[in-house]
């Protein structure tokens, strides 16, 4: 067991290092931060001085090793644009993204499962067919378009919801939350629908197909034959058995909700880490880009590591193979 865990952790670290190396080798193609940092009256001398100061004249391997040395001590450097430590900026921005992702995830899972069950039970009904057709929109329309459409409908035309931003937030310790104010909750609605729509339709379609599969099983027929109530059959017996793959997919999708928040945050000017990253790219703010990419890859690698370890815990065959090999 221990050997397996250690090997998986080492592999994960290797993946992280490679991701970082690829990221750093790409930064030079994003452009040159110097022109953004100096005004139009800069001279070549200023450019060379600043480049030397920031270490941009060194090969990317050296820059990368320096970044890693800082990162293992929790120091991600100073943002070129804001002149403040990157870790402070990330900490400020993270609550916005995490709250948005959490609400989107809950919406996607709740509505997705409910609609999935509904469309499976009433598979030939008009409403179910309409929902299935509409769900194609969620899968096929790009996020930014959905966001803009929602803004135009609910903010510009109807005037019900704010068109951008996070509303009023309340500070609790190092965390800012929009859950405690009316404007904060209102501001959450459109972005979380935009962000969660794809996952929602995905979960709905998955639940529906699993459900249809399960409903054909013999034990469901026997349950019906025994005279159990429809509700008990559908929810206690059928739904429970469809959830295993749903949970797996949802877990993996959690990472993408946070990572895909970039587009939603840009459309709604949502002050999270995704927007921060987009700004960093435009400004060639290398410390911010590097820290963000590393955090996202830590998250994905971490989720995969946990999933692997869970499989190991759940599936006894993995363990049996190892002992037999000795």
């Amino acid at each position, binding site marked *: 067991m221990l050997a397996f865990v250690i090997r998986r952790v080492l592999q994960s670290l290797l993946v992280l290092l490679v991701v970082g190396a690829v990221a750093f080798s790409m930064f030079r*193609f*994003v*452009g*040159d*931060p110097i*022109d*953004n*940092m*100096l*005004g*139009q*009256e*800069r*001279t*070549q*001398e200023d450019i060379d001085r*600043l480049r030397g*100061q*920031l270490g941009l004249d060194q090969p990317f391997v050296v820059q990368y090793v320096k970044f890693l040395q800082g990162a293992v001590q929790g120091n991600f450097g*100073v943002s*070129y*644009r*804001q*002149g*403040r430590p990157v870790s402070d*900026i990330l900490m*400020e921005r993270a609550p916005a993204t995490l709250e948005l992702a959490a609400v989107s995830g809950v919406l996607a899972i709740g509505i997705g499962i409910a609609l999935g069950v509904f469309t499976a039970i009433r598979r030939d009904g008009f409403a179910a067919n309409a929902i299935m057709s509409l769900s194609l929109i969620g899968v096929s329309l790009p996020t930014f378009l959905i966001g*803009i459409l929602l*803004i*135009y409908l609910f*903010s*510009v035309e109807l*005037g019900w919801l*704010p*068109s*951008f*931003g996070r509303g009023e937030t309340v500070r609790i310790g190092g965390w800012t939350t929009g859950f405690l104010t009316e404007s904060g909750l209102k501001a959450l609605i459109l972005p979380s629908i935009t962000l969660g729509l794809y996952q929602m339709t995905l979960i709905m379609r998955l639940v529906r197909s699993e459900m249809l599969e399960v409903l054909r099983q013999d034990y469901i027929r026997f349950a019906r034959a025994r005279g159990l109530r429809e509700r008990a059959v559908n929810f206690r017996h059928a739904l429970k058995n469809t959830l295993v793959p749903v949970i797996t997919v949802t877990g993996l999708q959690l990472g993408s909700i946070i990572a895909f928040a970039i587009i939603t945050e*840009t*459309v*709604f*000017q949502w*002050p999270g880490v995704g*927007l*921060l990253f*987009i*700004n960093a790219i*435009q*400004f*060639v703010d290398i410390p911010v880009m590097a820290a963000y990419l590393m955090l996202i890859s830590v998250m994905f690698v971490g989720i995969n590591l946990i999933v692997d370890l869970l499989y190991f815990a759940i599936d006894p065959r993995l363990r049996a193979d190892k002992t037999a090999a000795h």
Partner: protein
Amino acid sequence: MFRFLSVTAAVLLSGSVVAEEFRWAETTDPQTMDPHAVNSSPVLGFLGNVYEGLVRRGKDMSIEPALATAWEPIGAGEGWRFTLRQGVTFHDGSRFDAADVLFSYERASSDAADTSSWFAPVSDVVVVDDYTVDIMTTAPNPIFPDSIANWMMMDAGWAEANAATRPDPENGNHATLNTNGTGPFRVTAREPGLRTVLEPFDGWWGEAEHNITRAELTPIQNPATAVAALLSGDVDFINPVPIQDAARLAANEGVKVIQGIEARVIMLGFPHEAEALKYSAETEGNPFADARVRQAVAHAVNVPAILQTIMRGNAEPASQLVSPAMRGYSAGLAERPVYDPDRARALLAEAGYPDGFSFGLKCPNDRYLNDESVCQAITGMLAQVGLQATLDAMPVQNYWPELRADNYDMYLLGWSPGTFDAEHPIRFLAATPDEAAKLGSWNFGGYSNDRVDTLLPQIQSEIDDAARQAMLDENAAILQKEVAYVPLYVQPLVWGARANIELTQRPDNFFVLRWVTVN
């Protein structure tokens, strides 16, 4: 029920009228609150509401008194004597006097400051008494007061107490996030990239023209989101309005579009010094070294058509490196080359390229308004006379390094003179590049003309306005005749505001909060 709703609505409406809260959105957040750390218009434009200089620009861009009440040349042009305004306090209550001017000079001209180039002509700053300061210059400098309109005064005591005596753009310090100016507004909350809140400063020396009690700036990067926010009333003002949305917004009740021209002139540049073209398969040598070829380019580009289609009639053609709104503009040279493809073809034939040639055109795609579309149009127009351009458009952070590395055969450039004077583009774009003398630092093509180089220092030190203008005219005529650049148009300025907002638009694209009235 209906009555209850209407009462609530009335209360809400009257509440918003009394508060006079003003919310506005810009594409770029000012990256720092330090007035000497970054010399860029988002920063200086915003901080102009909070900090003040010795002089400032009025609604028509003219220089007017601010923290100095009067100024006069010393002797035969050894420098300038500024008489300071008395009774001015900083936001923290401390007194403004000559020591703060000296400190602000040392701070803004230090190595760490991005504004140090403003003080290149300054040899010394002498405190005569508490309210008199002499700024000595190495040579007579008639436009010095014009060139320091954005030089903002910081309190020496405050900076020392907070360990911010020098700007620190790389690591930041107290002044990066906090302000203490003398201006009409003080910053009451600052969350970088999210929002910045301003409230009027009760102790301001001037007479308030505005009626704002609180103002909030939010950066909104996505243009469509900004337009939606303005339409829905979530913000009262946005800058800029995307050109393609201007007509639609103007047709909307409750919203108005304010248009003008900016200080920025968009032009085409050439590789004057290059031995050969970089992106041409068949051409030997550098055709653009021949003024006739550059003249042909000028005649081949149909500027009115570009302005009509891509700029939707919002921009003005340009004939020289500065717009008519700038000091020192040569009114006698206002005519730009007419669109005449036949003449362009004839000029090319005369220069030895009857069938034209191929070359590479470099262009940014996120720096100027619709820059890539403009370059595409130019590519098509040049093809009509046989000039086959291969367009390579890229984000601006990749663009400048390419130009510095001479990787172009023709390029698009926009120039906004920081001093709002015709001398500025000559110094940066037309003077022969000279690293030590800080000349021609944006003259990528290495254009060089002895007469231009001789005239420049004379222009810089000429006190007499008429003589100075004559030299500027001569200079502009040389640049036009040699087609050093092909000026295309002056970039438009398009702002959007709610109908109940009164404001003033200035060609430097600075948003001045003290001229805003909420009706």
